């Protein structure tokens, strides 16, 4: 049986990182052609998308963005009662940065460079989570 389509929201203001993340999500183990990758270019756009669009299976959240940064966007998404896994992404990965993200409600942290490779573990985990979700639905 085909698994449920996976919806990923990438929150990233820099085009180069969007291009690379898009390639990495497509390359993730278990990714299929029907899977959707939506993009929001800042935290405020991400909050709107989460509110208005069908539930996401994974949110990849950058830190430094105009209008609204990743920490605030994460806080607001959690305040809406959304439980979608949020993976924080940052170039530095300083402990204070990671703590701030986890404190805001993110589930996981990945360095920006790792996010954009074939070994994008959150992407792989999302595809596995998607499969498990489908299995549970069929029970």
């Amino acid at each position, binding site marked *: 049986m085909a698994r449920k389509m996976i919806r990923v929201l990438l929150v990233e203001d820099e085009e*180069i*990182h969007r291009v*690379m993340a898009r390639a990495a999500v497509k390359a993730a183990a278990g990714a299929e052609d029907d899977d959707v990758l939506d993009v929001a270019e800042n935290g405020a756009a991400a909050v709107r998308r989460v509110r208005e669009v069908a539930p996401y299976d994974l949110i990849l959240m950058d830190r430094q963005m105009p209008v609204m940064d990743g920490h605030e966007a994460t806080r607001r998404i959690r305040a809406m009662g959304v439980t979608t896994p949020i993976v924080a992404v940052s*170039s*530095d990965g300083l402990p204070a940065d990671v703590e701030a993200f986890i404190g805001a409600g993110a589930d996981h942290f990945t360095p920006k*460079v790792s996010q954009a490779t074939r070994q994008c573990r959150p992407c792989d985990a999302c595809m596995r989570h998607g499969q498990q979700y489908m299995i549970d639905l069929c029970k």
Partner: protein
Amino acid sequence: MEYSNLRRQTIFMKKNLFDQGFLDEQFNQLEELQDESSPNFVEEVVDLFFKDSSRLLTNIEQAIDKYPQDFYRLDSLVHQFKGSGSSIGALRVKNECSVFKAHCNDRSLEGCRRSFQKIKREHATLKQKLESYFQLLRQVGPREHAVSSRK
């Protein structure tokens, strides 16, 4: 014969870029994401980096002139630049950005100015070397562009 020579040259050129510290493993990871459906992915991403980074360098230069004591702004701009450079494996550029950020932390304007000149030099050198590399790669032909399949 010509193809073999060109191929050898590309391999040699790429090895040099790594041996001399211009590129790191992230560049290989980029190549892993390239396949038949996006055969020019690496070159496209690198082009995107140089387009973006030229703009960022201008912004940093202007910020150093107009807001010399605003180390938070300077750090933030270089942080962005460093992130983009890291994404294509631009090791020397990335390292010099770290030096710049350390100067911001120390609130050393002179340090920032010196480091910024180095960043510009490393950026220009890398651009030149990668342009030559991709020019050679194009001569080798599309067989070399699809490095690996994604699935």
